[in-house]
């Protein structure tokens, strides 16, 4: 009797990170959706390809997002220029990600310039966040 209850409690706990919904993150996504002309929804797979592509468009030390965030966004990363540890980007292990609009904008501005050599579009930002929400 008790065992199924405990099991379901454990399952709930295990699943909790996947439900790390946050109204602030939703609002950030909604803003990017509004700024995305001809918006038809964000795509986790486009976000993943943004994350993994070797852009080599900016700083040679950061040819891709993975240069700092590693191939696995659920892991800790490390700033390739300074050696500073970086918390995981995946929302499932770091629920604070993409909840502070100023921080999100500042980081996209810096990192897109550093990796792609240009600013990211609102669609790219939304795709990236959508990918990380599923990670």
């Amino acid at each position: 009797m008790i065992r199924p209850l405990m099991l379901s409690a454990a399952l709930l706990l295990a699943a909790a990170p996947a439900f790390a919904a946050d109204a602030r993150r939703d609002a950030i996504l909604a803003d990017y959706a509004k700024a995305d002309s001809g918006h038809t929804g964000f795509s986790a797979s486009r976000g993943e390809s943004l994350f993994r592509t070797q852009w080599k468009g900016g700083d040679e030390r950061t040819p891709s997002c993975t240069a700092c965030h590693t191939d696995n966004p659920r892991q800790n990363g490390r700033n390739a220029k300074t050696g500073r540890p970086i918390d995981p980007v995946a929302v499932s292990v770091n629920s604070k990600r993409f909840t502070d609009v100023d921080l999100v904008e500042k980081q996209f501005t810096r990192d897109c310039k550093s990796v792609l050599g240009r600013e990211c579009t609102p669609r790219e930002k939304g795709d990236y966040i959508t990918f990380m929400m599923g990670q």
Partner: protein
Amino acid sequence: MRKFILAAGLALIALPAWAGDDWMPPVTDPLVKKECGSCHMAFQPGFLPARSWNKMMDGLADHFGEDASLPADKAAAIRAYLVNNAGDVAGQGRARKAMGRLSSADTPIRITDTPDFQRKHRLPDWRWKDPKVVTKSNCPACHVEAERGLYEDD
């Protein structure tokens, strides 16, 4: 009793001086910790003179190749903290030594360019090439308590 409390209070105030000449007052301001410490360690302002911090804060748009621009109000608050706690203003612990070795004609914006840093870091190449180091400005790679202003562990 009152005398005892006074003495205890004085002892606490004096504590940092006991930590040795290599002690550097750590960054205490939350905004400075957050903004200066997100991409690299928030370096203690005592390592550079006020003129250096002013020069650095004037050039955030090209911060060693990075666009580290900040909103004007945040930048002004950070500048004030760095200048008020600069090595030639605060002059505590390591800062006094660091400033003593710096020519008043120089305005370095890299701590690693200062005579004090270079004098203390005459190390064989293989130590700099250790993968955990990445760059000379990565103090905590070797000085595990660098953020607390403790560098005597070398």
